[in-house]
């Protein structure tokens, strides 16, 4: 079967899964739908891998499917990369869903939307015309919105999250549509090929407008500051397999959109575009990691760290555009490879982390780190997988996040001193942002893993936690294994990323990467041997452990109570909580975060010197939300109040409105005609 055929076949399978999800009785629904969804993923990724292996895009066109325009799918190597990325998250998430469905997410609408969501995620990167793209993009948005609202009957927070998500995602879609419309108006066609061939002839102003519109539209999907506000609301409220898909895969498609417009449709742009992307990336990375370090809700923390990782991807993307714009094509290609690898590894570890967080929520009923603790003993496998995910996201060797950051660092490093002023200034700043982000990410995830999974349980729920069903562990485990494999042997992924990049940036020339056992950047002196590094780490650990065992005289290990300065009662409440863990960081970045702190002290009636009770509250609000969105919302409300006055409830008045409108329209026609 041709790749195009496979592509269609996959899409049909997805539709079938959605229908099955809506039709079958509850008992079989989840299992059958899940099987079909996994089959969809497999078929689509086979098609994608075919494209990546041959380098020839897969085409498919139907003039019947969408009214008037028809549907066009064309899977380029770049799109294929993203299809694989989606499939990498979707298969484990679906596997996880089988076990998770016992705790909700098994309703007809949910199952069907889930299948449709995955199918849309898989086909968006293959869309090759404006209508097809917007159609699939909207399906993706609507189904994910339905999934965010799964628990809305039980939780008000889910409803509010749904509203935020729905509004922002649709405003974003409007921006994307506007960008497409400008392009399409000039090219006279709506297929991407037509857009691409005419875009170069566009006036610089129009090109810039298109790029900025697309940047806002796709940036809002990618959760880039200042459009990130929906992420920390929607991700925690969505069911965990959906959070994993949204955060690992859907958000990455936002970055795909920026690459699609910047590099493919518009074919690159001036330096200032990319400086904006770079700046957005740096700000998002810093803001996201800072808030992740200060969140106590586990899933909210993960959501903020998604903003942080997308910021890093944009940083790489911006650097890539910058290099290409200043004529350093190979370096540009290297940065784009870094961006793709960062997205890929983000999909893996963030998927694993969200799934593990979901398991924690299922097992304990809580998401607040201050009420968790000691879970590694109660849930050894989930805990270990969370630790792997945390190590990966902290970019520690030998996990996949490390390779991504190394690639990004190297491309930035060799970008200095190329002779362009903006580059020379932007790059050290980018390196500093990258480094601070890396540091804050470590704070966030040492906190998440240490407070959540180590120490002693802080609530009865955490104390009574039991390990989750096998399918959930399998889903998480699959992603955890990917983190390790991609970290130890990134050569398995990088050739694909490289092919995608070479298809995207036509002037690269020779390959930017050489790989065997070690990863070698061509043209610059930079070598990384991830496999050797991992192997030597393992050998060193074994050797040191052996030496400790061999040289120790006393082999017995005595279990003793934790040392609490001689106190006879050391309780779980004496441990550091997530809030106290983040307090130093909070204080250092006081001016940025502006935390709200209250202390209430009540005294005994007899004497001011004797305390009765004392309470301390500290809250870190999202300042961008309060500074940027609250005024807009208030204004909209005020207009809403005004509009209310127009609706007194009188039928006569409404009919009169209709008459007035008709008269005005006719008058306009009369005057203009």
């Amino acid at each position: 079967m041709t790749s195009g055929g496979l592509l269609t076949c996959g899409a049909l399978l997805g539709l079938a899964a959605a229908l099955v999800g809506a039709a079958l009785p509850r008992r079989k629904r989840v299992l059958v739908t899940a099987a079909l969804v996994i089959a969809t993923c497999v078929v689509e990724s086979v098609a994608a891998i075919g494209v990546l292996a041959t380098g020839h895009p897969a085409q498919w066109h139907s003039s019947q499917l969408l009214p008037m325009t028809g549907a066009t799918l064309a899977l380029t190597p770049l799109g294929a990369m993203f299809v694989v990325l989606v499939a990498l998250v979707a298969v484990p998430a679906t596997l996880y869903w089988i076990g998770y469905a016992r705790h909700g997410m098994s309703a007809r609408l949910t199952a069907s939307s889930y299948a449709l969501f995955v199918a849309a995620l898989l086909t968006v990167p293959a869309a090759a015309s404006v209508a097809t793209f917007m159609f699939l993009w909207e399906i993706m948005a609507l189904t994910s919105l339905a999934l965010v609202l799964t628990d809305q009957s039980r939780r008000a927070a889910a409803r509010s999250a749904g509203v935020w998500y729905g509004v922002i995602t649709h405003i974003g879609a409007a921006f994307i549509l506007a960008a497409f419309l400008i392009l399409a108006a000039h090219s006279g066609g709506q297929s991407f090929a037509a857009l691409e061939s005419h875009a170069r002839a566009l006036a610089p102003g129009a090109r810039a407008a298109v790029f900025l519109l697309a940047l806002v539209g796709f940036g809002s999907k990618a959760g880039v500051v200042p459009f990130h506000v929906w992420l920390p609301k929607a991700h925690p409220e969505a069911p965990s397999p959906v959070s994993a898909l949204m955060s690992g895969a859907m958000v990455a498609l936002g970055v795909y959109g920026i690459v699609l417009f910047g590099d493919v449709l518009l074919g690159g742009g001036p330096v200032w575009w990319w400086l904006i992307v770079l700046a957005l990336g740096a700000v998002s990375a810093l803001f996201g990691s800072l808030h992740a370090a200060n969140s106590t809700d586990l899933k909210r923390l993960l959501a903020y760290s998604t903003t942080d990782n997308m910021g890093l991807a944009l940083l790489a993307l911006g650097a890539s555009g910058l290099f290409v714009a200043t004529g350093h094509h190979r370096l540009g290609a290297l940065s784009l490879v870094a961006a793709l690898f960062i997205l890929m590894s983000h999909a893996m570890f963030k998927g694993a982390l969200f799934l593990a967080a979901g398991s924690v929520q299922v097992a304990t009923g809580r998401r607040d780190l201050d009420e968790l603790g000691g879970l590694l003993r109660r849930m050894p496998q989930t805990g270990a997988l969370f630790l792997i995910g945390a190590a990966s996201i902290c970019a520690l060797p030998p996990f996949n996040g490390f390779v991504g950051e190394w690639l990004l660092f190297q491309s930035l490093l060799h970008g200095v001193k190329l002779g362009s002023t903006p580059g020379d200034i932007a790059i050290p700043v980018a390196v500093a942002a990258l480094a601070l982000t890396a540091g804050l990410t470590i704070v966030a995830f040492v906190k998440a893993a240490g407070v959540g999974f180590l120490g002693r349980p802080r609530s009865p729920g955490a104390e009574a936690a039991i390990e989750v069903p096998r399918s959930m562990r399998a889903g998480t485990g699959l992603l955890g294994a990917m983190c390790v494999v991609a970290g130890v042997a990134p050569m398995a992924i990088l050739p694909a990323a490289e092919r995608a990049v070479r298809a995207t940036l036509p002037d690269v020339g020779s390959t930017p990467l050489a790989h065997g056992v070690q990863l070698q950047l061509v043209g610059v002196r930079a070598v990384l041997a991830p496999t050797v590094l991992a192997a030597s780490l393992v050998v060193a650990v074994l050797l040191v452990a052996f030496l400790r065992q061999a040289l120790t005289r006393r082999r017995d290990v005595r279990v003793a109570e934790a040392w609490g300065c001689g106190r006879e009662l050391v309780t779980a409440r004496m441990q550091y909580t997530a809030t106290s863990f983040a307090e130093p960081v909070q204080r250092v970045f006081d001016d940025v975060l502006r935390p709200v702190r209250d202390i209430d002290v009540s005294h005994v009636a007899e004497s001011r010197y004797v305390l009765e009770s004392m309470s301390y509250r500290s809250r870190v609000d999202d300042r961008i939300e309060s500074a940027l969105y609250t005024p807009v919302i208030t204004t909209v409300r005020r207009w809403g109040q005004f509009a209310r006055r127009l609706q007194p409830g009188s039928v006569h008045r409404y009919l009169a409105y209709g008459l007035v409108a008709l008269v005005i329209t006719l008058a306009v026609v009369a005057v203009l005609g």
Partner: protein
Amino acid sequence: MNHSAYTSVLGLSCGVIVLCAVVVLWRRSLRAIVRALAVQGMALALVALTLGLHGHDDGLVVVAVLVLVAKGAVVPTLITRIVRHDVASRETQPLVNVPASLVAAGVLIFLAFAASRSITALASSASGRLIPYGMAAMLIGFFALATRRKAVSQIVGLLLVDNGIALVAFLATAGVPLIVELGASLDVLLIVVVLQVLATQMRLRLGSVDLDQLAELHD
């Protein structure tokens, strides 16, 4: 003096000049700030000396000696006198806190570097390429002027600006007319003396040399 040693010394002294400006923002102790100023004056003198020796310009050597005496010794000593009488000789609460000031200094350094890019592109000499350092010292001086509360820090800020301008002048023209440099130095000396008198008066009347307290005179 061979060429590589010449560029090294020049580069290093320019680096030290910017570093001293950064130290002014970094440290809270007024004595340390004044000490940084003195070191900066000496580095400035070294720049002039190097340029003079390399270009065989005797006038510049004389200027170097004058700069060393005025900016490396006399002015810091005068300022130290003000500090000595000040009981709380620390810049405890700058308007912008120290880490933020340091990050701002980093930004200013880059800004200076970017802004003088067109000048350095034209400059063919080793000295011309170092102009960004002078700009950076100047900008940091302005920043110190704007954000520090103590009168002494303000004087130091002003002197940083002055040193920055002098450095740019040295590097750009490889030699300022002796008279101009003398005039400028005298101006600065005069300012310091006036400020010292003012500071003494302030201390007598207000008990400290915190500029924020001048606002109270308004009522």
